[in-house]
């Protein structure tokens, strides 16, 4: 990696655009770490999500909510180029990370994902030991220093160390679903990303495991910026500082598109939404 801290290219060139502007109607707590500007995501010729503009504030939790098929997961995956391996997937508009467009020609998606990690819906530890799961990212990223210390640190931060410290060489698959998901979080924070994307991280977990992950998210905001997609509105209200409400719209050609309806501070969105559709959704009249 190049010495420049925000450089995502494989070559040591610097491509810094103007800093992202903040969306209207939101009081920022500082310069946003990420900024989406008119982002549309396509699968082939199908426009899955149309024209999304929103900031991701540093050390805050941003939630994306909305009914199924509204494109919230699609947008999330566009934030660290996880849509790249899907044939025909394409992004237009700007996804800015520290002002740098993640889809610029000379940006290396590997470096992007190294800086913007992801936790998935279903806990997906590798079929390896707990230790090797956490060490995997450290090894491929050539992180120096004592591997043992890094592994312990990551597991501690993910609130899992006390439960697994006597069995780190045992299979990760023997852990419970909630423990597996915290292991996946440990694996992600081990490589020290700046942003962690979470795609419905609790949807496969029971309420107690969910509560543990939510507590963990709150603690992680001291070091990380979190973006979470969730089906659960109470969860969004509990854990997030900002909320983006997406919905699916049918245009004049009868084609469905995901759309960002409203973005604001979570308290405001849930108590005093600006848009009628947001109000209908959060009051349970729709979706």
């Amino acid at each position, binding site marked *: 990696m190049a010495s420049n801290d925000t450089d995502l290219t494989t070559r040591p060139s610097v491509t810094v655009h103007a800093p992202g502007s903040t969306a209207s109607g939101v009081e920022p707590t500082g310069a946003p770490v990420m900024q989406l500007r008119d982002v549309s995501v396509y699968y082939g010729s199908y426009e899955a999500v149309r024209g999304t503009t929103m900031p991701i504030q540093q050390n805050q939790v941003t939630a994306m909510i909305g009914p199924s098929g509204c494109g919230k997961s699609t947008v999330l995956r566009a934030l660290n180029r996880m849509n790249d391996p899907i044939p025909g997937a394409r992004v237009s508009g700007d996804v800015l990370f520290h002002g740098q467009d993640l889809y610029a020609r000379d940006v290396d998606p590997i470096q992007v994902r*190294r800086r913007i990690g*992801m936790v*998935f819906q279903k806990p*997906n530890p590798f079929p390896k030991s707990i230790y090797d799961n956490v060490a995997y990212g450290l090894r491929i990223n050539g992180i120096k220093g004592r591997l043992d210390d890094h592994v312990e640190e990551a597991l501690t931060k993910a609130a899992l160390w006390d439960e697994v410290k006597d069995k780190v060489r*045992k299979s990760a698959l023997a852990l419970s679903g909630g423990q597996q998901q915290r292991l996946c979080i440990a694996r992600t924070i081990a490589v020290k990303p700046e942003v962690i994307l979470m795609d419905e991280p609790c949807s496969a977990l029971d309420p107690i495991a969910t509560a543990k992950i939510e507590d963990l998210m709150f603690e992680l905001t001291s070091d990380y910026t979190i973006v979470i997609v969730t089906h659960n509105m109470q969860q969004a209200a509990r854990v997030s500082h900002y909320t983006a409400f997406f919905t699916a719209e049918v245009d004049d050609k009868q084609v469905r598109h995901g759309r960002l309806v409203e973005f604001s501070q979570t308290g405001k969105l849930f108590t005093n939404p600006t848009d009628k559709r947001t109000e209908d959704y959060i009051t349970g009249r729709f979706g």
Partner: protein
Amino acid sequence: MTLTNKTPASRSALAQRGGSALGDRVFSWWTLGTGLLVLAILGLILITTVREAWPAFDAMGPRFLTERIWDPNPATGEAIFGALSFAYGTAISSLIALLFAVPVSVGIALFLTELAPRRLRGPAVTVIDLLAAVPSVVFGLWGILVVAPAMVPVYQGLHDLLGGVPVLGRLFGPVSSGRNFMTAGLILAIMITPIVTSITREVFSTVPRADKDAALALGATRWEMIRGAVFPHSFGGVVGAVMLGLGRAMGETIAVALVIGGATNISANLFAPGNSMAAVIVQQFGESTGTFTAALIGLGVVLFAMTVLINVLAQTVVRRAEARMKGSVA
């Protein structure tokens, strides 16, 4: 409706349905029967071959396995039947085949599952499967008419280049003709590539998207993703594919008989002619009688035993490796 209702109609609603219960029974007998049939056939083959081979085992004793001389019609004295040279030929030609076929097959399978554009996959798979449909005698004829002569200069070049190196040089000894262990191994490699590729591809395609995503999301390159997510998940299946290929290579008869050179020979020199058990059986069975015939069947028994042994060994290896890789699940 309540369950305590005693009218005939409601009772029959919970009674066994006659027709489908019969179907269930027939199905279970059928599957059990076919399963037992396989075991029965295997057992019968083993019993009859051992019985037919007994005169040779009886005459040679354990020497049948340790003797390298095979002389059915000696000028003077008793005939000698030693399987060792042919067992060596079977092992070395199959080993060469694996050495070439496995990396190629894994490469093709990875290309087809991870890299190839979607519209290229179908045609590529068809072409590879076609390779499996070529009769082995055609491979043999191609080997003896085309490959063997064409490879002689290559072998000669390798001998000139590496023949002088200590230890390693012994593998690349003098070349007498194109028909040798190496050519047999190469032909076998081509013959087993389709089956190994096909199964390896199936195994790779069962790796969950979630595992691959997990690796990519940690900043893995495509190769790191393959090493970290695809290989650990596929190890057992790939070994299974290799074992099937090995089984086919060890049992291959006519193609090997045509290109291996037909000599009773144990030599480290890969460019020396030799023979394999299956090839000897097909070459000599027609002109054999009595103990000679028994000895050829005995080769079959040894081949059978070798295949079973290797498969058991492979299963043990897979179990151990998987346990080590996953960490124990206790």
